[in-house]
């Protein structure tokens, strides 16, 4: 199931300066994520999980060390190049969904596609495919304010997968949801990994969410404490959309 590492983090350091004070957040951290893996990232608050996720997603650059995604050294890319790289390679799922309130579900999912050279017909096809994946085609003309938290997060997932990215990163995607909605979201993530063979990085505090991951790494005070590796790949959860392979999300490539 697992192939070549798609994410290679090599000896990164990250510190922030707050006034005079220098805060070391990540210290000499290395990590590899094989293609198609569902990796859970846990750790106490302030341990640097979001910071690590941001570095892997190309939202920030390490103070030292290298971040490779596939064969790209993203830790050395310029901000503008990183932006374009993210469109095609990263699907980001936020704890608080962060949909644009003025746009409908459809338009929110369409946002990343506006940056790609697609015809409007292709764009429409991809948006509808992504919305279908999260079973929200019937709500596509609703604005976020008219959707429940769980539904908003499903729109967030559709937006994250619509460009068919290399890597999906989710920062506590269930942190703001009730148990039932959280379950739905986790099922969806599992489906993405199983059926579409997406590589997923999931930051979570919730042990039940972490359970879904194939492997869990713990961060503590900026250092990795690898442990509790559940190697067994669980059977696909109930309700996995049959035939998701045929959904037609096109491989954009890099």
């Amino acid at each position, binding site marked *: 199931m697992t192939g070549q590492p798609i994410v290679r983090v090599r000896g990164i350091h990250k510190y922030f300066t707050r006034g005079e004070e220098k805060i070391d957040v990540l210290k000499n951290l290395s990590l590899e994520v094989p293609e198609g893996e569902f990796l859970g990232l846990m750790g106490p608050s302030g341990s640097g999980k979001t910071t690590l996720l941001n570095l892997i997603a190309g939202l920030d650059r390490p103070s030292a060390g290298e971040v490779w995604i596939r064969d790209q050294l993203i830790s050395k890319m310029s901000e503008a190049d990183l932006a374009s790289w*993210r469109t*095609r390679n990263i699907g980001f799922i936020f704890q608080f969904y962060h949909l644009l309130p003025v746009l409908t579900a459809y338009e929110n999912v369409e946002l990343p596609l506006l940056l790609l050279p697609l015809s409007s017909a292709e764009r429409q096809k991809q948006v509808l495919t992504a919305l279908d994946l999260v079973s929200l085609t019937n709500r596509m003309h609703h604005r976020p304010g008219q959707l429940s938290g769980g539904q908003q997060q499903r729109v967030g997932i559709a937006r994250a997968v619509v460009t068919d990215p290399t890597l999906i990163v989710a920062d*506590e995607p269930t942190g703001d949801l009730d148990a039932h909605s959280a379950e739905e979201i986790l099922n969806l993530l599992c489906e993405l990994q199983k059926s579409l063979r997406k590589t997923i990085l999931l930051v979570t505090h919730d042990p039940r969410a972490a359970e879904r991951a194939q492997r869990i790494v713990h961060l503590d005070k900026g250092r990795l404490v690898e442990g509790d590796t559940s190697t067994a790949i669980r059977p696909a959860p109930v309700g996995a959309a049959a035939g998701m392979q045929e959904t037609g999300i096109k491989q954009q490539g890099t």
Partner: protein
Amino acid sequence: MIDELLANPVTLLCVVISLAVVVAGLVFAVTSPRMLLLVIKNLRRNLGRTTITCLATMVLVAMVTMIWTVIYTLDMVTTEKSKDFKLVVTERWQIPSQMPPTHADYLNPESPKFLPELKGMIGPNDFMTWSFYGGTLDPTKFTRENLLFMFVMNPKHIRSMMDDLDTLDPALVKKLGDTRTGVLLGPERLAMINKKVGERIKVTSLNYKGINLELEIVGELPAGRYDQSAIMSDAYFNDELDKYARTTGQKHPLDNKRLNLIWLRVRDRETFSKVGEIVENSPYFADRPVKVETASSGIGTWLAPYADILWRVRWIVVPAIIVSMTLVVANAISISVRERMTEMAVLKVLGYRPGTILKLVLGESMLVGGLAGLGSAVLTYALVNFAMGGIKFPIAFFPAFFVPAWGIAWGFALGAGTSAVGSFLPAWSARSVKVSEVFSKVT
């Protein structure tokens, strides 16, 4: 019209800015219609704030457009032209200028007394004289409605020499020439005295005491610049002065001072210097010396008393309005950007480049500013020129000022320009937002 544009750097700049903004806007709309939709939806989100920004921009643009109309018009008439320009001949030592009628004969190419040295330099269509006659329609009531101020001139010279009257209906000119007591009135003046073409009016003079006229309204002057004006034939005026001398046995006190201005047209500056030298040194004018100026410098002299206030309006009032517009926009946009920093960060996460985010914010502000500016300028143009009959700001002998068509470019450029400048800093802060910082506050 193009000459006017090239002669006026501010207007030219506005036209260039307007074109650039329109082209940039069209390119944006055509290449990224969905992003334009996002811009529009963002504007709709806080309709109250958008409306207030819009209204503030409109009011300020209207103010600047009106003020600049006056300044622009005065600039245009005082800008020296290099070809085919007019000269004014006036009494050298006295204001107002009052010259004997014989002065005109030496300068009139159709008169036998025409100075031979001027042959070839002044043609029959390059000459005109003006006398000013002011009177009231009701000697017992000196209200504004009753006052009538007329240009007294030879009808033959109207089309060839009067500004903007070169397209006047020749039949109307002929009628004025044929009707000895005829008068042409501007449409507003007609409405004000409540008379129609064909009716007669009695005028009691204010400046030519005892010379009262009975005039027949033979036609209407075009609307606009001549809305309030009146033109009567000099033949009737001269006859009445002669009649006064015959009946009273002595000449009217103003008999030999009846000519106020003589206009000439020359083809270039060289001819102007020659004509000036010949006329100013001619012994024929020795009894009442004259000076020859270009029309623009002549008008400039008449405007001299206003120079100070015009300077202050141009360099203090107008810039102050523009600065306040910019601040209004900057304030509104920076509030709306601050409210949406998280959204900007989300766009960045999705892969929006800093430049794209800058464009989105600038686009938002310039769309409102540009449209408000354009709307306001078009409204001002229509209201001032067609509903108000010009800006009534009596300065020198301008009865009213009319917004030029180019004024629409001022409004558009001003609206779009101030919103671009005002929103630049907020747009830059949106562009530079650090994703990791925004979300470290959230999580």
